[in-house]
């Protein structure tokens, strides 16, 4: 009996030491990780709604289940140039998080994948940049599309899916579509 207690005590001691060292490393690296994430988000906003790059992005409906950013071309105007939505889709091996830019007519100005952990070589191609090109080809094709065109080619839409990665392609497309639908529903209730 005392033997079991002794074994448990040793194992317990080792896990406590492990937990303490992890807490230390976590504390040391957390500010840097957070800063990088915030910077990634700002970059994503500017990528998907370049019209407001020089201006401001105002967080709207903060605290609700569907917050979004209104984009203004410069700081002292009340006319927005578009909206940045944050959305996600269930991919093959991860939840794909993305930012979606929409102009006032309801057409997409761009999408950007903020985080994903899809299969490298297949699903991860949603962020692939081809040699000699400046932006990811899969995301670029969303530019200018409207709600009715947003499904992958296999489902009769206008988005070319990635060979061998239909689930990831569909996850991104469906995520963007559902975000646009929610925005539309919100605007309808806001302006009766």
């Amino acid at each position: 009996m005392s033997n079991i207690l002794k074994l448990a005590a040793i194992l317990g001691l080792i896990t406590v030491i492990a937990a303490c060292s992890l807490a230390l490393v976590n504390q040391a690296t957390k500010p840097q990780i957070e800063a990088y994430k915030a910077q990634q988000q700002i970059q994503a906003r500017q990528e998907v709604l370049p019209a407001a790059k020089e201006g401001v992005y105002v967080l709207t409906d903060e605290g609700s289940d569907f917050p979004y950013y209104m984009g203004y071309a410069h700081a002292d105007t009340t006319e927005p140039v578009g909206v940045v939505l944050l959305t996600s889709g269930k991919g093959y091996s991860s939840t794909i998080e993305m930012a979606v830019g929409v102009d006032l007519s309801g057409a997409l100005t761009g999408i950007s994948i903020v985080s994903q952990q899809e299969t490298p070589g297949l699903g991860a191609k949603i962020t692939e940049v081809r040699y000699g090109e400046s932006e990811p080809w899969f995301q670029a094709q969303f530019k200018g599309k409207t709600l009715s065109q947003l499904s992958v080619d296999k489902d009769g839409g206008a988005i070319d899916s990635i060979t061998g990665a239909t689930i990831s392609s569909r996850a991104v497309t469906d995520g963007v579509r559902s975000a646009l639908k929610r925005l539309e529903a919100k605007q309808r209730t806001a302006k009766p």
Partner: protein
Amino acid sequence: MSTITEFTKGLYKENPVFRLALGLCPTLAVSTSIENGLGMGVAALFVLLGSNIIVSLIRKAVPPKIRIPVYIVIIATFVTIAEMLMQAFSPQLYKSLGIFVPLIVVNCIILGRAEAFAGKNTVGRSILDALGMGLGFTLALVLLGFFRELLGSGKLLGIPVLGTSYQPVLLMILPPGAFLTLGLFLGFFNWLESRK
């Protein structure tokens, strides 16, 4: 065994992938390109080095009955540390490796070396063993990644080398390509060994 062979045995004679056939799951999964293979190899080397040092330091204090859970706690700790450090100081590398980093916990080379070597040997020898095995693993991943990336996407290190007329053999970066390449390599090394 002399000190230097503790290091060199991991490179060829006891290469974890090609000779011992250990850690095949991550090997098959991540060797789609040179960059992925190299990143994974270096991360595994870091974890292997850390766990080998700690395991050999405490080898006399740990009762044999609980050695496996103790080793796993130590390995998981180092993997998490590696993950956090990579996220903070090299977010680009972390982004490209993604899910592979936490997968190092289940890499049986690391538990295997803790159990078979570090638990019975001095710190110095364990460090040499970890370096040799880690480099051997990295070497194997880079070799597999080289052929799979070249044939599967016509690129090396992400740069196209086979020209636009080359039609990539998609199979090579899919799981069957991993098995085919690894099988040919295992056969090649067995053939080398049998000629001696």
